[in-house]
């Protein structure tokens, strides 16, 4: 069970994201750097929210389980809000760094567009978020051990893996919509992104009733996927052209010079 579960859950959780990374990001050094910078920003947001949570826990009654749970819920909400704040901060930083980037890359125009940056930074946030959520669980799944021996759910590992997958992809979609909303000053879109992030996190409060958390999360995932696709400029027509390999721009873009 153990090796199979480990590899299975790892590939479920990180497979699509790793494929995206390898196919679209790994070749371009600039994108890799922005991915790692995005991961760093997520990390800093987590650090701040953990700090606040830690302080509140120290000041609270450690024996009261209800209070601890309440504080944890507060920590989750705070963390989500801080993540979105840091996403906004990253967006501002990227806009400000335009000139510096131009200098470094020896180009007259930005070598990387704000849309690509949104995709890359969202994936960075997603990788880090997914990694922090699931890596310890994966290392435990190598075993030895018994799942749910005290009466907890038997599906702990696989549900964690699926949830992580959803979160990683969601981060990517959220970032695309978020940056687009910031560019076009559409504050309602921004608010919706933040609210959907909050909703997804709050849905996990019903775990281990996975029907209550996983299914709505995946519904939100598909909605966000469609929204992000249209924000990035996709239409049904584009999609059809791309899938039937008739889209000239797409073909040209992938033609590597030299």
């Amino acid at each position: 069970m153990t090796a199979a579960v480990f590899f299975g859950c790892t590939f479920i959780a990180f497979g699509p994201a790793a494929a995206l990374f390898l196919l679209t990001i790994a070749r371009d050094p600039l994108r890799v750097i922005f991915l790692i910078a995005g991961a760093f920003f997520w990390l800093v947001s987590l650090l701040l929210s953990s700090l606040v949570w830690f302080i509140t826990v120290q000041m609270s009654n450690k024996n009261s389980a209800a209070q601890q749970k309440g504080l944890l819920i507060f920590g989750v909400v705070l963390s989500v809000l801080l993540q979105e704040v840091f996403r906004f901060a990253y967006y501002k930083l990227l806009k400000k760094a335009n000139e510096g980037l131009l200098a470094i890359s020896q180009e007259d125009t930005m070598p990387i567009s704000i849309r690509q940056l949104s995709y890359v930074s969202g994936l960075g946030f997603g990788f880090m978020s997914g990694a922090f959520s699931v890596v310890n669980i994966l290392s435990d799944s190598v075993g030895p051990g018994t799942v749910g021996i005290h009466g907890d759910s038997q599906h702990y590992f696989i549900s964690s893996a699926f949830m992580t997958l959803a979160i990683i992809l969601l981060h990517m979609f959220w970032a695309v919509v978020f940056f687009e909303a910031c560019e076009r000053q559409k504050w309602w879109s921004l608010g919706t992104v933040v609210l959907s992030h909050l909703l997804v996190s709050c849905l996990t409060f019903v775990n281990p009733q996975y029907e209550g958390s996983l299914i709505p999360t995946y519904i939100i995932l598909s909605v966000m996927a469609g929204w992000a696709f249209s924000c990035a400029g996709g239409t049904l027509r584009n999609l059809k052209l791309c899938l039937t390999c008739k889209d000239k721009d797409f073909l040209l873009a992938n033609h590597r010079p030299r």
Partner: protein
Amino acid sequence: MNTSDSEEDACNERTALVQSESPSLPSYTRQNDPQHSTTEPKRVSVIPEPITFSAREPGHGPDGEDEELTLKYGAKHVIMLFVPVTLCMVVVVATIKSVSFYTEKNGQQLIYTPFTEDTNSVGQRLLNSVLNTIIMISVIVVMTIFLVLLYKYRCYKFIHGWLILSSLMLLFWFSYMYLGEVFKTYNVAMDYPTVAMIIWNFGAVGMICIHWKGPLQLQQAYLIVISALMALVFIKYLPEWSAWVILGAISVYDLIAVLCPKGPLRMLVETAQERNEPIFPALIYSCISFASDEEAHHNEDRAEEREEAEPQRPTVHGQNRSHSVEEDLEEDRGVKLGLGDFIFYSVLVGKAAATGEDWNTTLACFVAILIGLCLTLLLLAIFKKALPALPISITFGLVFYFSTDNLVRPFMDNLAAHQYYI
């Protein structure tokens, strides 16, 4: 025997660093336009420092000319350093997590850290670790100054012999120990003749690759392996608190040694510049191979690969932590990072991996170090002179280690226990 692929690439990559890597959409790129590369003296971007290691005269031209002829630092160079640093850290973390030998403390310590940390009070332990740090740093300072003096007075043979001795020790003895421990961990039955053959081959090829000629990637691989071995030795033999204080102190020393006008490393760099020679090329991880005969000759004299515990380490340490860009006849430029940087990055991440079952701390330190390296290269691009690579990365790494271990870990553990997701 050096692979020369990079020279052909250099001409293209000089003018189109980012472009050659990315299949960007046409609207966001410009075609390679030779005129543009000559018209922008103001767009200095990432020009490396004016140290020239080629056969050309020093002070060979005004800055504008330099800018035309130089490869610009770009994202490509950052990635060219990210990959080996990541590989080294992966090797160290993988070893630490699987081979328990390197995390066992049996009371043995290096002679440079004589004070034990098995004391009763916290204050005493802190004092001992600070004293250990002071001794270690003084040894390093003394050795660096000694090396700089040797270099200044042209005692090349002495340096050469010293470095060969230290790389011998690393490539044969430490790798033999490492192999032994790996076999013990996985309970592999092995006989001495086979081990002798393996180690002999590994060591001999390593010596040739590092000190003479070899394929660039093999040389880079050996440098990574050697840095990892050295980092593992440090992780094993440095006491807990001393290791952290030493990491902090060495970043400060690095800063002083490279930036202060009378710092030993700065003097080394300037002496090398006056003599128009490369600075111990093989003590430094370089992303490109040397092309010209001049360079190859210099390399043979001075191509050392040394990272070894005792006396040598501190000395070379100096150079290893300096960034420099080197330029050979074909204007091929790459970025170089000292092996001491590799070692101390890996020590930090390895120690993060050694403390407990938690992977989050390791990940956090890893990302922090990479971001620090990125910022350092950005500064290198702005200031265009040799910069210390340790301070920013180690500071970030230390901050993230302690905060993740103490703040984030309980938070994430609680979340995972309830399966809440943020």
